[in-house]
């Protein structure tokens, strides 16, 4: 079974590292990160991303642009606002996203 590929985007380097480390603790998930919008788009264009986690610090205009780009280029991608910063909420957020994907 292919791993669920998760792109985490956030502006805080240490928090982003923590989020990716936690994602990769699950053997069925693969986490990659991007700190800038440009990096995020590059990652998205070159890999088949299943879930995008929007982490802290993303400016409202950037968020709008990123969401528009991702949904325009691959409407089936699931975009989730991640709260808490690599915390106890991460796993449940991803499970909820997977549940939504299974419905659609």
């Amino acid at each position: 079974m292919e791993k669920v590929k998760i792109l985490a985007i956030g502006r805080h380097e240490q928090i982003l590292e923590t989020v990716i480390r936690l994602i990769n603790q699950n053997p069925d998930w693969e986490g990659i990160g991007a700190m800038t919008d440009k990096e995020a788009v590059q990652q998205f264009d070159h890999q088949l991303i299943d879930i995008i986690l929007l982490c802290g610090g993303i400016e409202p205009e950037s968020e709008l642009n990123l969401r528009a780009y991702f949904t325009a280029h691959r409407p089936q991608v699931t975009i989730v606002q991640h709260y808490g910063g690599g915390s106890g909420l991460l796993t449940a957020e991803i499970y909820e996203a997977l549940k939504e994907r299974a419905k659609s």
Partner: protein
Amino acid sequence: MMSNTILHKADARGHANHGWLNSYHTFSFGGFYNPQSMNFGALRVLNDDTVSGGRGFGDHPHDNMEIISIPLDGDLEHEDSMGNKAIIRKGDIQAMSAGTGIYHSEKNAHENELVKFLQIWIYPNQKNVQPRYDQITLNLNDRHNRLQQILSPNADDEGVWIYQNAWFHIGKLDSGLSTTYNLKGGANNGVYAFVLSGDVAVNGQQLNTRDGFGLWDVDQIEITANSETEILLMEVPMKF
């Protein structure tokens, strides 16, 4: 108004015993995932934690969350990346707005005593705010047979404040005492009652120690203590 309710019995909570940390989760957290118990409106985490002597949560990050700690027993040592270092004790309340990102640690301040505290997370009404920390000492006498406000959205109101249209109250009620809580935040708000100790009826629902009961589409709630009771009321937006 016809109210809606949800009951979370104490023994239905998630449980994680890590040795140094014994934690009960009302809502999905860490390894506990229950799709039926994700949140109550903006209330996302209600963890009932016991930490062994000298142990605690090491330095770890957070962002975009309002984090409230309420010690129930023992002393908790707090340190964070904003330079705050403090001890919080029973009767204190701590509030952190994680905003764009903070690091903090929370440890048992003593080697030979347990510390028990509630860790409560509320979704913020603004993302990416400047991180902030607040801690105050409450007068425990002010909750005897009344509801003492310990948190609000307003910096100049009683208790600590957070970035959300939320109000917390604690009451320590003698057996037989009844009181009413009137919601403050309007029709979008609900109330989650968490029994710290004792037996109590909330709008007729019998509750025991560590039970949780959420109500929404309601203007006020009636609380009757069937024994000496301590209860925490968390009023939060249901849509946010």
